[in-house]
């Protein structure tokens, strides 16, 4: 399935088309490692999309619990790309401000991740985690305290696994241009 980050209704139509074949067997939900934690099971998200209630599906917590393990997509008898539908629901939720408060931290992390790429072309782990945790704390989100990771740092450092600076690509402007063309400036909070 091809989901393009186009605006509102066009993406809705893409997603609706993608789930048209779903016959609600629930195999996606049956195999989902996160099913127990989800407020709405994947098959119900797909059903809501089929009924045109995309906003309700996008406002659920479940899409943010998805770990993108592709089990649903792999086993779907109707070849619905369920994981991609959940990706699209996340994008719709971000676009419409529907991300549930409890799931903001996942969004924050992924935004911080993209921002790191935009700046350096590669991920700077230390900066990424720092940025994520700071923002999460500022946003008063339920995130384990910073010092827990700080405790991990020396252990990583001892193993030569901690890089305070991280790598940077030569052509950073190019990366910025790619991001601009994909219209994906991570929103700064």
């Amino acid at each position, binding site marked *: 399935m*091809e*989901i*393009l*980050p186009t605006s509102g209704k066009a993406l809705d139509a893409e997603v609706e088309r993608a789930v048209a074949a779903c016959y609600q067997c629930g195999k996606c939900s049956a195999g989902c*490692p*996160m099913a127990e*934690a989800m407020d709405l099971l994947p098959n119900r998200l797909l059903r809501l999309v089929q009924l045109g209630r995309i906003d309700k599906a996008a406002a659920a917590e479940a899409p943010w*619990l998805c*770990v*993108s*393990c*592709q*089990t649903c*997509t*792999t086993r779907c008898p109707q070849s619905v*790309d369920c*994981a*991609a539908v959940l*990706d*699209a629901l*996340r*994008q719709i939720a*971000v676009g419409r401000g529907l991300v549930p408060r409890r799931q903001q*931290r*996942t*969004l924050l992390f*992924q*935004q911080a*991740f*993209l921002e*790191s*790429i935009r700046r350096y*072309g*590669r*991920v700077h*782990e230390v900066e990424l985690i720092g940025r*994520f945790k700071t923002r999460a704390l500022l946003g008063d989100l339920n995130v*384990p305290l910073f010092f827990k990771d700080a405790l*991990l740092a020396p*252990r*990583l450092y001892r*193993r*030569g*696994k*901690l*890089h305070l600076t*991280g*790598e940077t*690509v*030569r052509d950073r402007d*190019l*990366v910025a*241009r*790619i*991001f601009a*063309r*994909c*219209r*994906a400036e*991570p929103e700064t909070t």
Partner: protein
Amino acid sequence: MEIGYYPGCALHGSSNDYETSVRACLSALDVGLKELDDWLCCGASAAHSLNHKLSVALPARNLALAERDGMAELLAPCPMCSGALLRAKAALHGDARLREEMGEIIELPVAGSAEVLNLVQIFERAGIERIRERAVRTLEDYRPACYYGCLLTRPPQTTRFDDCEQPRSMESLLSALGAEPVDWAFRTECCGAGMTVAREETVLELAHRILSDAAARGANCLVVACPMCHVNLDMKQADVARRFAVNHQMIVYYLSDLVGLALGLSPEALGVDRHFVVR
């Protein structure tokens, strides 16, 4: 034999023990790695979660670099990276308009022609028989639980690798080297992948299930071919122990670690000493 190499951020970051292992092991097999010049991050799950176009553009840029530099094959030891590259390849294949659009976005023409290989495939390429001949010691003390996780085999339409429900490729390789892989239930279950930081509790729960089943089946180590699996099962094992009050002390090897050990490399040369759980 020399092939293109796309390390990805993890192998140049906190999973550099994986890179050490892959390089040492492949070098012992006379497989040279030529690192892709000025590669970009593949975007990982953040890109396909938040911006579909970016999730094609970033790997497309890397595919384009490989094409520009004449690399027909590209090893991506991280399945998140290889998955992203393969997804982009699939999207570009047979869609001239997308190829054109992407070419403009990434400022390089791209066809998506480079073949993307995971670590297991490199070993298969090198030849299991040849590896067996070069082995200087048997792995008979090892009863590994081979852990494929999600992205090595899924979704099968994209990865086209092994049987996604009952994979055998790691077992075949390690059995050939004398190891006795155990049969267990969690070979293709998910460990939480890149959610380590964002959703730690999820990762601990999933890692706990995996470690417990491996232990229950009599495995004395786990074998992975993914940096995220390693982080969640090795680095986080202490947290699992604390949370669930069960200390498995399960050593988690990269596949290249065990192959390297069979080839006579030292644990230090393979970076095994830098794991969190050590013997």
